[in-house]
């Protein structure tokens, strides 16, 4: 039985049009911003810290803590929303932006107030033109109502007007822009290649000014926290490490793919697939699940009782990441599946770090040789060796991500590789 829960991020399941400002305000929209403006910026940061909200883009870094790193110095500070949603299997931020643009805008406004930002950016992947148009329309509504831009109808706790402008900026097709320093480079008009850190963006980010980069879903959580309070937020989820709601993307071999907003830590992966996803269309058992798009280790079917939160998925040998669950039934050859993921990372490597640039190319060539039936047993050792050379040796996480499916599939489904290289027959595998 699906659990009893009233969604707050996507409260209109099935809706395809954007919620208007009037509709949003009718259900309590922008009350969170008004509450925030009655507090000092530090108090707002403190509330978000106390809520336990963690970044929903993948890394899971505590949001309030990130805001607190911004130094209190004069001059421009920037808040940048990472809406470069490009992880395969991930389509949650798209729904928020297309249907609930005001929730994101309100979150941006609250975050901007907390860090002292007067110009925020929403960096959207280039393909999401509908999301861009709808956000621009929602921003125009806010400007007309005096919530954004000038003159402002809102006053800060110190009595001065609250002034914020938001620019929607569309990228042009590059997965690497999901990495926060590459995104900043892209916004600055340079090739989007990750920066060495330190300095971290909180100190020297966009235009070398203090900058906070937060994911769309992260910012969409903020209005509720400021409207209803920390206790109400913490009542959702599984404190202390897993507070609040999470949008779980479900795709692949399920009858009912889609976005499902649920409290963290309240259901198991098996319940999610069977009760929400309707099980596999083929009726075949689940063979494995990718929980964070194609960037985290595959979860074996023996781990389907894992709880759906940061700790539960970690305990199952993987990571929650963007919570994008790709289900694969027993018909899937994991060597083939892994080859497709490796092709993605080879295509998307920005080329800056040699281990990633060369390594993903080696992985792709070796994988495709195996999938084409031309592989040898030594190729399996080559894959493991190359993965070791990439992991931990690159400026950003793309290199590590590229190795996840390879390492986990070799560990959990080695027979699929042995069949491909002719060391085992498919009937032997089936019999096992």
């Amino acid at each position, binding site marked *: 039985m699906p659990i009893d829960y009233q969604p707050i991020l996507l409260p209109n399941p099935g809706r395809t049009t954007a919620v208007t400002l009037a509709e949003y305000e009718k259900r309590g929209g922008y009350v969170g911003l008004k509450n925030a403006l009655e507090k000092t910026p530090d108090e707002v940061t403190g509330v978000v810290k106390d809520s336990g909200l963690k970044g929903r883009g993948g890394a899971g870094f505590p949001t309030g803590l990130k805001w607190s790193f911004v130094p209190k110095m004069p001059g421009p500070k920037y808040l940048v929303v990472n809406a470069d949603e*490009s992880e395969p299997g991930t389509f949650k931020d798209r729904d928020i932006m297309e249907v609930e643009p005001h929730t994101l805008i309100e979150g941006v406004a609250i975050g901007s107030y907390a860090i002292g930002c007067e110009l925020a950016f929403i960096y959207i992947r280039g393909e999401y033109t*509908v999301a861009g148009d709808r956000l621009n329309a929602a921003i125009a509504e806010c400007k007309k109502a005096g919530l954004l831009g000038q003159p402002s109808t809102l006053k800060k706790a110190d009595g001065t007007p609250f002034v914020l402008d938001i620019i929607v900026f569309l990228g042009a097709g590059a997965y690497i822009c999901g990495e926060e320093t590459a995104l900043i480079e892209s916004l600055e008009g340079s090739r989007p290649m990750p920066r060495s850190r330190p300095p971290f963006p909180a100190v020297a980010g966009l235009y070398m000014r203090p900058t906070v980069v937060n994911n769309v879903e992260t910012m969409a959580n903020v209005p509720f926290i400021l409207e209803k309070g920390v206790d109400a937020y913490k009542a959702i989820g599984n404190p202390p490490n897993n507070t609040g709601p999470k949008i779980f993307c479900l795709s*692949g071999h399920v009858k009912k793919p889609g976005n499902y907003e649920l409290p963290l830590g309240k259901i198991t992966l098996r319940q999610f697939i069977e009760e929400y996803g309707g099980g596999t269309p083929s009726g075949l058992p689940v063979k494995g699940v990718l929980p964070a798009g194609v960037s985290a280790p595959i979860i074996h079917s023996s781990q389907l009782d894992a709880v759906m939160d940061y700790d539960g998925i970690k305990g199952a040998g993987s990571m929650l990441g963007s919570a994008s669950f790709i289900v694969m039934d027993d018909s899937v050859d994991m060597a083939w599946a892994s080859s497709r993921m490796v092709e993605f990372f080879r295509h998307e490597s*920005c080329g800056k770090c040699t281990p990633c640039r060369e390594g993903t190319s080696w992985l792709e060539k070796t994988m495709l040789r195996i999938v084409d039936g031309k592989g040898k047993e030594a190729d399996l050792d080559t894959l493991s060796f190359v993965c070791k050379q990439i992991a931990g040796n690159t400026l950003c996480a793309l290199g590590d991500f590229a190795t996840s499916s390879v390492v986990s599939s070799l560990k959990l489904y080695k027979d699929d590789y042995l069949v491909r290289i002719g060391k085992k027959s498919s009937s032997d595998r089936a019999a096992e």
Partner: protein
Amino acid sequence: MTLSVATVTAIHAEVARYPSKKTALLPALKLAQKERGWLSTETLGEVADLVGLPHSHAIELASFYAMLFTEKVAPVRVEFCIQLPCALVGAEAALDKTAKLLDVEMHGTHGTRHGHTKDHQIELHGTVECYGACHRAPMCRVGDDYVENLKTDDDLKKLVGDVKIRAQQAPKH
């Protein structure tokens, strides 16, 4: 040939919009491509001049991003996602059927496949890039538009019919 007054005006507006003119380069390149269909060396130089940057900066960006084209492309591009979530629910079969319906001979293997109609009006691609529509798979992009839930032969026939109409209405390659 110079860019139209409307495009030049829009590029100037972009330059004025951001704290740094360099930020305007990517939007400016997209505006130029919208008018020209692709970014020739001459167009890249023209855009760089309008933004006030060295030509090399424009080349650096144009040669990196998947949505910027430094070679001439067909006026109608159809791009099927064949990354894992889509591939698991029949995206590659949908791509093959679409190629057949459009009479396109496909080249390449695995996650990178491409072809075009004989008149070069339509390009068909299978790509490993995910477009964030895995819950409505199989899907493709036709230009900037998403066409989702391509589950049946009738869905694909309708797609191909619409694509052919676009190709007829588009400027000749």
